[in-house]
């Protein structure tokens, strides 16, 4: 004979509302715990979806070659602390990649230092990148105005602008044919990229903020000292990716005298790296949130204990009119569950608000998964049941006469 759950919850809500301030204070731990977990989880999911989206865009046939060994695991904690074997990519590597049979397109990317000047003065938001002609095809990105470099542009002083760089550098909406100054030379704008979708946490420089010059121009400008920070390559089909990665690795090893001071990465490796960063972040948050929830649970236990003491006469009367120990137990557990559940709902609500703000103010696009919401609900209910059962047992086991006397 249990008091119907609905009645219990209705009663419990009444009690919670009767002590509004106290209830909200008690919920705080739960609110903070739940809102932080939900926020971090949804940011993480958002990033994963963005990264996956990018992989889908550029296709899983894209291969990235970077200097430095073990780039795959750069997401884990060890790689943040332990220095990696460094190395560099050379012009010879560029040629090797280009000549590999199964590689259909390839492009080196090299940073060129120097100040850039246009309508709005010095430009510092982005970098100047010497890029191979196949870049748009490799990253599957279209040019909004003009066109990207071709053979005729080799060693010419032309630039293609990232969408944001274009806005930042020039007054004109479409500054095709306009010029900018770089390393004492005048460069003419040949094309402007469409906006790249943003991928937070990616180690790549932002293409939207970048100013591209032909790779050959970059080499020439720097007296052949500019080295690629990255080589992009593409195979003709997904089936070939694994073998191509192997082939590339082998032939590049020869160039590097057998030292693995570079990495050949597949698109999915990028995702794995991002995932491992996110997993680490999520784990840390779960620990912090766990502490917060624990503190919240203890707070709820204390408040319910106070509530039990204050309501001794009520417990006595309830027992006198026929409430069994179990029914009293359920009533008080329902109260703490209502507290934790309300805390969880407030926490989720706060998290949704934070997500919205993040979407507006940053490149992040948090995604709330129903599994996370379900877990938040279940965890907060469990906290209510576990921490509420101590005071509830105290109430349930109270001798009715002692309770009626208010002892």
């Amino acid at each position: 004979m249990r008091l119907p759950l609905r009645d219990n919850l209705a009663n419990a809500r009444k009690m919670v509302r009767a002590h509004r301030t106290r209830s909200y204070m008690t919920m705080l731990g739960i609110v903070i715990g739940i809102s932080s977990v939900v926020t971090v989880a949804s940011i993480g999911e958002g990033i994963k979806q963005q990264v996956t989206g990018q992989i889908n865009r550029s296709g899983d046939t894209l291969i990235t070659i970077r200097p430095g060994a073990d780039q795959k695991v750069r997401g884990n904690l060890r790689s943040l602390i332990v220095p990696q074997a460094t190395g560099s990519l050379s012009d010879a590597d560029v040629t090797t990649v280009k000549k590999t049979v199964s590689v259909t397109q390839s492009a080196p990317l090299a940073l060129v230092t120097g100040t850039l000047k246009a309508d709005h003065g010095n430009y510092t938001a982005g970098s100047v990148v010497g890029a191979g002609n196949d870049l748009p095809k490799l990253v599957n990105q279209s040019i909004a105005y003009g066109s990207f470099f071709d053979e005729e542009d080799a060693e010419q002083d032309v630039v293609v602008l990232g969408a944001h760089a274009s806005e930042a550098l020039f007054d004109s909406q479409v500054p095709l044919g306009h010029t900018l100054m770089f390393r004492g030379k005048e460069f003419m704008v040949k094309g402007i990229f469409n906006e790249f979708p943003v991928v937070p946490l990616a180690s790549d420089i932002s293409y939207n903020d970048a100013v591209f010059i032909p790779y050959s121009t970059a080499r020439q400008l720097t007296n052949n000292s500019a080295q690629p920070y990255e080589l992009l390559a593409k195979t003709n089909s997904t089936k070939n990716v694994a073998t191509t990665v192997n082939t590339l690795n082998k032939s590049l090893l020869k160039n590097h005298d057998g030292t693995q001071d570079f990495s050949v990465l597949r698109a999915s490796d990028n995702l794995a790296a991002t995932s491992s960063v996110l997993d680490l972040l999520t784990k840390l948050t779960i620990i912090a949130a766990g502490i917060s929830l624990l503190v919240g649970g203890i707070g709820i236990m204390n408040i319910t204990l106070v509530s039990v003491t204050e309501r001794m006469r009520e417990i006595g009367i309830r027992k006198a009119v026929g409430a069994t120990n179990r029914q009293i137990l359920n009533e008080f557990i329902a109260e703490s569950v209502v507290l934790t559940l309300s805390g969880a709902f407030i926490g989720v609500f706060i998290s949704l608000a934070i997500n919205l703000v993040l979407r507006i103010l940053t490149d992040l696009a948090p995604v709330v998964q129903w599994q996370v919401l379900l877990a938040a609900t279940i965890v907060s209910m469990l906290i209510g049941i576990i921490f509420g059962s101590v005071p509830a047992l105290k109430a349930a086991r109270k001798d009715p006469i002692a309770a009626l006397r208010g002892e």
Partner: protein
Amino acid sequence: MAVIELKDVSKLYGFGDATTLALDEVSLTIEEGEFVAIMGPSGCGKSTLMNMIGLLDRPTHGNFSLGGRKVSRLKPNRAAKIRRDTIGFIFQSFNLLPRLNALENVALPLTYRTNMSQTKRLKMASSILERVGMQEREYFMPGQLSGGQVQSVAIARALVNNPKLIIADEPTGNLDSQGSRLVMELLSEIHKMGNTILFVTHNPELTRYATRVIYMHDGQIIQDEKTAIGQVAATARSGMYNVATMTEEDDLAGVSVMMKTKPHKETKIPRKRKPTTKKRSPTTKQNSAKRAKK
């Protein structure tokens, strides 16, 4: 049929030197339909007896049955269910849950019964409230009601389960004469419907409503008389309760007078301090009787 049957029931509180004998081998039979007033100085064990009969407490020794069923050693949950289904309680104070309105308070015992819908519960509570003349204050909170009204709601709550037995421990203890009248009239009406009612009072006037008056002292029943409804019980009328029995000395004096049954003699009785512990010596009753004879 005997609704209540107690045989040599004792209740001890505490242990060692601090042991209190709250009930001392009380034997008592109450038949269905009786309206019993219980009187006696404070601390004599009235509440202990009420709580025992109401299954809120268990006897230390002795046998006890309710409606023919042995209940001296019931498990708490069984006791709770019997309370729920067959007993209605009215206490002196703090009867109502402060956060529930009158209607919800009356419906409270029903919420502990199996699957009765809330609508049905409130409907039942409402009709009972109407019976005690409180239908216009269904949605009042206890704080908004007068003492008499609170007790009326408490009576409604005691009635809502349609119990055989109603136990009221000083239901008028906190009320003025008007409130007392209201409460007693209500109980009286319920009695006419066939319920068995036990109530504790200090006011001899209220024995008018009873069919039987039991006097207690030091955990024992020292007198048990049947009275006609409408008349103050003879012993009560004798005057022992005209003066509020505040101290133990007064209590003793009151009992002494009662022993003599002749009114207004208490002034002559030599007052003697009783031992401070409540431990009853077997000679107390004889002593008081002796003293009374002087």
